[in-house]
């Protein structure tokens, strides 16, 4: 079975632009979470969605938004990009909200 897939793998943007990152969960997994990993630090929780509803939100500004589609795939949107948004963005899926999460390889976002 395919694992969690994320696209694109790498992305370069400039300040002020917006970006959309995509995630396909493991087949059968209905919960998707997003994390931001800045170089040298552990991942920071951004959002969790389960059955297309937001179940949790981390301490991120309103420039960050997400949604989950009927097929359980998910998008993370970031508006008005700042230099500090440069990071590895990780998507994780699980069968239920309280089950171990399986991570994709991430999208490396660089802001110039």
């Amino acid at each position, binding site marked *: 079975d395919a694992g*969690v897939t994320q696209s694109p793998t790498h992305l370069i943007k400039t300040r002020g632009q917006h970006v959309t990152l995509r995630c396909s969960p493991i087949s059968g997994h209905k*919960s998707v*979470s997003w*994390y931001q990993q800045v170089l*040298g*630090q*552990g*991942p*920071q*929780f951004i959002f*969790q969605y*389960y059955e297309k509803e937001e*179940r*949790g939100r*981390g301490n991120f500004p309103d420039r960050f938004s997400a949604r989950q589609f009927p097929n359980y795939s998910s998008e993370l949107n970031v508006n008005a990009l700042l230099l500090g948004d440069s990071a590895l963005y*990780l998507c*994780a899926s*699980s069968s239920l*909200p*309280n*089950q*171990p*999460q*399986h*991570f*994709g*390889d*991430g999208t490396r976002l660089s802001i110039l």
Partner: protein
Amino acid sequence: AQSVAQPEDQVNVAEGNPLTVKCTYSVSGNPYLFWYVQYPNRGLQFLLKYITGDNLVKGSYGFEAEFNKSQTSFHLKKPSALVSDSALYFCAVSPPGEGNNRLAFGKGNQVVVIP
């Protein structure tokens, strides 16, 4: 709010020797605890979890972890380290019963296994 501390930046160990990576946590109630490993330019791989039951948890690739409630610790161990175990290791905690699994990660420990 839940948090995790991984006090050491890097752990160096000779191949074949025991490996220990330390983790302490702070959370209200009984925590869900996890260990993940990250290889360069990759996502995180799940190693093991503690939710309830036996304090010694066995996971993937020969790793195990011991939950100690009185010391609020969840140290990762492997009896005999391999060169291929060299990677970044993250401890994470999730509060129980919230209906979500927002993980709070430590800063990570770089493990270097010396041949």
